[in-house]
């Protein structure tokens, strides 16, 4: 039972890091990015290629180094950010709303198929494997205690990400990003360089995606195209929407409900003979139903984004960020 709990929490922490990254892109600056899981995947692949050592035939992949895990993770994050810089620089230049989404979807499928077909890169459809218990030897951990260590690591990283995101959330940078989401022509009219700001948010979000992917690789010890389908992005979107688009607490809660809750709740369903795909299919159906219900009845999510409020009725003293009755953002794809 305790092992099970550790597994669920580790996965939850990793997905929360990814969702917080995507929330910067969609929740803050308002771009419905469908390439996000590509950055997660690149983070995972790079971490593996940098830690598992040289390729032994018949497997082939680039790099093949045996770097310490933290350094590999750092390089993986930078790689994801560089890829996002390229994709974002093209897609964010003139495209908004559904057109931006289509281009990013195209980009991620190009990457997906390229990774699968071009075997010398990351060993094609077989993927990479062999990252066992990163940093376990360094800390002298045995098999039984390792999963606790990795959970602790993921939680610590998640807390770090939360601190970073919370800091940015209330800052001028964070609020100015929201103005792009709300009306970018007005934002430009008031001096904001839309392209550069959106690109910054995009690269930052992708960096968190890469970090999530790197931790995911350490957790799975392997990664291949069957582990990453671009559709996974939709699960992250579902978590953000249900929790509260733009809201940090909301996104963490959304991951708890939609990724951990739903996943685990459907696990205990009785198996139907000859229908092994019943539970996963049901999970997707439930995800869809919940999404529709939330879009219809509570588009701002369970914990809506907080707004800067002037608490003092007389209007004196400092403004503070408090829970608001202000309805959250409406659901759109960021179209101007």
């Amino acid at each position: 039972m305790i092992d099970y709990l550790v597994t669920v929490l580790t996965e939850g922490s990793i997905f929360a890091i990814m969702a917080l990254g995507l929330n910067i892109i969609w929740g803050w600056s308002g771009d419905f990015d469908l390439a996000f899981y590509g950055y997660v995947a690149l983070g995972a692949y790079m971490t593996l290629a940098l830690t598992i050592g040289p390729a032994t035939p018949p497997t082939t992949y680039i790099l093949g180094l045996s770097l310490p895990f933290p350094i590999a993770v750092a390089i993986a994050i930078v790689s994801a950010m560089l890829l996002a810089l390229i994709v974002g620089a093209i897609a964010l230049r003139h495209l908004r709303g559904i057109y931006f989404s289509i281009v990013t979807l195209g980009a991620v499928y190009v990457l997906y198929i390229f990774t699968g077909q071009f075997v010398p890169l990351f060993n094609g459809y077989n993927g990479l494997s062999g990252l066992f218990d990163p940093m376990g030897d360094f800390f002298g951990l045995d098999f039984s205690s390792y999963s606790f260590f990795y959970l602790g690591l993921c939680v610590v990283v998640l807390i770090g990400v939360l601190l970073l995101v919370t800091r940015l959330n209330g800052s001028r940078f964070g609020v100015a990003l929201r103005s792009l989401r709300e009306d970018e022509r007005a934002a430009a009219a008031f001096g904001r360089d839309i392209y550069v700001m959106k690109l910054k948010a995009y690269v930052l979000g992708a960096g968190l995606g890469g970090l999530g992917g790197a931790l995911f690789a350490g957790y799975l010890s392997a990664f291949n195209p069957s582990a990453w389908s671009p559709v996974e992005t939709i699960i992250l979107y579902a978590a953000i929407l249900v929790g509260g688009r733009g809201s940090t607490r909301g996104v963490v809660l959304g991951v708890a409900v939609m990724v951990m809750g739903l996943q685990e709740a459907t696990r205990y369903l009785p198996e139907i003979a000859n229908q092994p795909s019943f539970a996963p299919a049901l999970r997707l159906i439930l995800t869809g139903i919940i999404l529709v219900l939330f879009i219809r009845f509570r588009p701002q999510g369970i914990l809506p984004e907080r707004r800067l409020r002037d608490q003092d009725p007389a209007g004196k003293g400092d403004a503070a960020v408090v829970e608001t009755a202000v309805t959250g953002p409406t659901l759109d794809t960021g179209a101007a």
Partner: protein
Amino acid sequence: MTALLEVQDLHKHFGGVQAVDACSFTAAEGQITGLIGPNGAGKSTAIDLISGFKIPDAGTVLFEGKEVQGKTPHIISRMGLIRTFQSPREWPGLSVLENLILACFEPRRERFWRSLWGPSRAEKERANEQLTTARAVLDEFGLFQLRNERAGNLSGGQKRLLEFARIRMAEPRLVILDEPMGGVNPVLGERMASAVLGFITAGTSVVIVEHNLPFIERVTDQVVVMAEGRVIAEGPFDQLRGNPAVVDAYLGEMPSYDDADA
């Protein structure tokens, strides 16, 4: 009076339509300049060209003596020329207060790294000053009680006022108002007229595009009349009434404004 904005020989076409055709006019510092003309005269396109939202085919736009044609909107805005739009463009999901605070562009504080380290003491003071100013401006425009409201929940008239309040916060050198009276009732119109005059007091010169002629007559010092992409007349509104070209292109039979609704 020195020219704050000088538009020289501006051209812009869309397909076969010459929207702006050799348009030239000036807007003086400390004055309210009206820009009027029939629908399709090229007024909105001219504004888009001046503010950088569209790129002219040819011609020069001088703002404070510097060429700005072809520059991007945010660069022109940072130079001190801010525009509004035909329909109010508030940031609907943000609070009214945030809408005002964000009207002040702060290049340093909005940087990513700066936001990460947190504001310096001087910047915190500046933020508090801004908050005080924002409260005063909201009070002036009668929006104080709504300051924590989601801006998208305001009525059409309140959104117009919010736009004016944002301009007051930003304190640009020149503001171009694109049909600010659209859908505004007479009582609110009065308030907006005094707000426009208030811009001058605050050091912001005004160019205003508007179809509401009594309003133009009341607030403007100088009027530029456009038709078919060109400027056909320039001068104080009173003089233009008698100008046959203006009457022919736009005013038509002069209506009596005595019983006009604004």
